[in-house]
């Protein structure tokens, strides 16, 4: 482990802004939830009613996780189910960023050639991730006011993060490049989420198969039990050990899954679009399949909710009143689509950033030194960054429509929910446009697009809870999307969003034509 200290310092130096930022923001979320529940449902009766009627229905339990009580803390804990997911996601990305991405860039070789133990680079990334998770856990408890409940919640978040840091570490050993490693890590996370969602929706023990569920089965602020943390710790240790074992059984730069020989030539790579297709098709397939599976799974969970209502007319009536005439299923699906919109925007940003990656790895240069002009080259990627999220949204709409429609015996739900999903596309496209604009005009700042997306996510998640003014909420393009299905459709906001997206994209292409390549 020689050099471990130096490597840790290197990582901390590189992430000196990003790391404290995500730790702080995520640690603050549960406290914000708690504060808003304390305000919105001040009495025991109100919380009791909320826990029974909203938090406790299968579709919400599928989305967020189980509810174990009606105290402020218990309600906040369930809401923090999404925080848990984000913590896990970030851990996967952070570990891959400091292991496989480094190898991709060849920087790892530079380090490996110095006096550094064979395990040190992987260990350094894990140490930083685990450290950040533990700080996040303690801060979570501190922000909520120290109690056994808040500490347990904080540590549950931390340990979910630690498990997925280890998942990221294993994924980084298996593939030869950072892209597929991220894909693999996120697929595992998606699967864990789906298993938990299915288990919680049906109230079966299936959830125990998902490490994400362990983070919630600690039941903070209710029947508190520390045992699941032990399971998380064991799994994380096992996975980290596996990653370490794998890492010494392969070459620096190589993967365990060896790359096969390719074709000796190509007749299909005929132009910039064909090249973009080759570079983007993996992303497109991954996101589309992922969205379809989520749609199918949650379409099923929705019908569970409907059943609960059919057996309880009083409840159904209550909800009809609460939702202003909009049915609970519609509210649920529209919430789900709101989250899907953010994910679709993330895909758009990711696809658009491929352009920047092509440029900074100098792969764009030889292509742009051929008869390929800059705008067609960029358009090849932009097409995927715009159309890809649309395809993905279409998939989730179709998935939801199919299982939900089959359940209620109305396949008319398929076009209806596809339409509702597609209504999210213009908002997602504005972020793609923003990324393209940054790429063309301020290429060194393309990463800012992720920050903007994070702000949109936060505004959507806690903006209303914090009772921020409408003017602030309006900053997020997602605020302007109609609440579909069920809500009222007005064309104007969608058209405006689409126009903004087009203008931003055009500005980016205009800038790219005029600027230096390779800076």
């Amino acid at each position: 482990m020689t050099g471990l200290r130096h490597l840790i310092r290197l990582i901390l130096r590189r992430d000196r802004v990003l790391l404290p930022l995500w730790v702080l923001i995520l640690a603050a979320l549960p406290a914000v939830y708690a504060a808003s529940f304390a305000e919105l449902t001040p009495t025991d009766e109100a919380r009791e009613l909320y826990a029974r009627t909203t938090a406790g229905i299968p579709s919400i339990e599928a989305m967020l996780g189980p509810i174990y009580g009606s105290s402020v803390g218990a309600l906040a804990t369930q809401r923090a189910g999404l925080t848990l997911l984000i913590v896990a996601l970030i851990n996967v990305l952070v570990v891959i960023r400091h292991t496989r991405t480094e190898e991709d860039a060849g920087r790892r070789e530079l380090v490996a050639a110095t006096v550094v133990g064979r395990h040190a680079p992987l260990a350094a990334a894990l140490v930083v991730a685990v450290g950040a998770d533990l700080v996040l856990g303690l801060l979570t408890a501190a922000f909520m006011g120290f109690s056994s409940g808040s500490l347990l919640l904080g540590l549950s978040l931390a340990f979910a993060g630690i498990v997925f840091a280890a998942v990221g570490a294993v994924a980084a050993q298996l593939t030869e490049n950072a892209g597929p490693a991220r894909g693999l890590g996120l697929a595992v996370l998606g699967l864990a989420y789906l298993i938990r969602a299915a288990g919680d929706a049906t109230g079966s023990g299936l959830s125990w198969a998902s490490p994400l569920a362990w983070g919630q089965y600690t039941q903070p602020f209710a029947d508190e039990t520390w045992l699941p943390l032990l399971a998380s710790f064991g799994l994380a240790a096992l996975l980290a050990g596996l990653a370490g074992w794998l890492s010494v059984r392969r070459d620096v730069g190589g993967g365990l899954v060896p790359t096969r020989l390719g074709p000796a030539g190509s007749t299909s790579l005929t132009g910039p679009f064909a090249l973009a297709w080759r570079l983007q098709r993996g992303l497109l397939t991954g996101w589309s399949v992922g969205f379809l599976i989520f749609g199918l799974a949650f379409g099923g969970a929705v019908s569970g909710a409907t059943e609960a209502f059919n057996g309880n007319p009083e409840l159904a009536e209550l909800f009809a009143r609460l939702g202003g005439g909009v049915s609970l299923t519609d509210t649920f699906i529209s919430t789900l689509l709101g989250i899907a919109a953010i994910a679709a925007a993330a895909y758009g940003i990711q696809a658009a950033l491929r352009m920047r990656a092509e440029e900074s790895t100098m792969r764009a240069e030889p292509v742009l030194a051929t008869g390929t002009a800059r705008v067609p080259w960029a358009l090849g990627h932009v097409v995927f960054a715009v159309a890809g999220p649309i395809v993905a949204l279409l998939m989730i709409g179709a998935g939801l429509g199919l299982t939900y429609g089959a359940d209620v015996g109305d396949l008319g739900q398929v076009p209806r929910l596809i339409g509702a999903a597609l209504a999210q596309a213009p908002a997602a496209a504005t972020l793609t446009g923003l990324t393209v604009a940054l790429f063309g005009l301020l290429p060194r700042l393309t990463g800012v697009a992720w920050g903007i997306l994070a702000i949109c996510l936060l505004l959507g998640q806690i903006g209303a809870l914090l009772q921020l003014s409408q003017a602030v909420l309006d900053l997020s393009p997602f605020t302007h999307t109609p609440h579909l299905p069920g809500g009222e459709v007005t064309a104007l906001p969608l058209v405006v969003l689409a126009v903004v997206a087009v203008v931003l994209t055009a500005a980016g292409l205009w800038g790219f034509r005029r600027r230096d390549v390779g800076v």
Partner: protein
Amino acid sequence: MENAILVSGLHKTFGRTHALNGLDLTVRTGEVHGFLGPNGSGKSTTIRVLLGLLRADSGSARLLGGDPWKDATALHRRLAYVPGDVTLWPNLSGGEVIDLLGRLRGGLNPQRRAELLERFDLDPRKKGRAYSKGNRQKVALVAALASDVELLILDEPTSGLDPLMEEVFRECIAEEKTSGRTVLLSSHILAEVEQLCDRVSIIRNGQTVESGTLTDLRHLTRTSISADLATPLTTIPGVHDLVVDGTRVRFEVDTDRLDDTLKHLTAAGVRSLTSQPPTLEELFMRHYQGAAR
């Protein structure tokens, strides 16, 4: 069109770095032109300006009779470029990259492609990362050499090639020359350029310090000679740093006076002789040390 490349007074800054400082470069059509300079002297930057990838701050640049920035796409169809540091796509095989780049340039000659693969001993089925640096370089070289173009722009193309492959490369460039193509070959190794180039331009700190045929530049370079002579000599006119050790002599001689000196040596009877060609580093040490920085 007499000049394939005509650059004068080119300036380019990156933040506070003055990468190009009034650079001049003339490459005549049909010649192999060596573009020499130590690392960081601005060779790649000049080439990127010529490819329309960077926009110069001031000065003028003409490429194949056109404006490298405005007419970029049209000009690019008539040239092939090999970057100094070739990176390939991890999921594309070498053969796919060759075909892609060739096609984007307007097509490549399949026979020539096959022949070059053979000569460079390159397996086109491997993917991006499975190639070593030298092999990545070969992928780009095959794609460029198999393209039917007027001008080849090669940025330190032999870095990473082993000596055997360097030889193959030299043969290829010699053939390109016979078939009338223009070649701009950047390098920081004088010997490499010497064997291939009709004319060279030497740059330093973004400025051209010398330009001309190698014969023109002879006066700048010194050859190191050591010899074992039949009859000992104590003085040899016109040489530098003479060391005499019995019948052995060691000295440096201005390359344009090499002939006179050798005559002097043969008069004394030469038993053995080794000579070392001048290097770019020496040349810079001697003539441009302390020049602007």
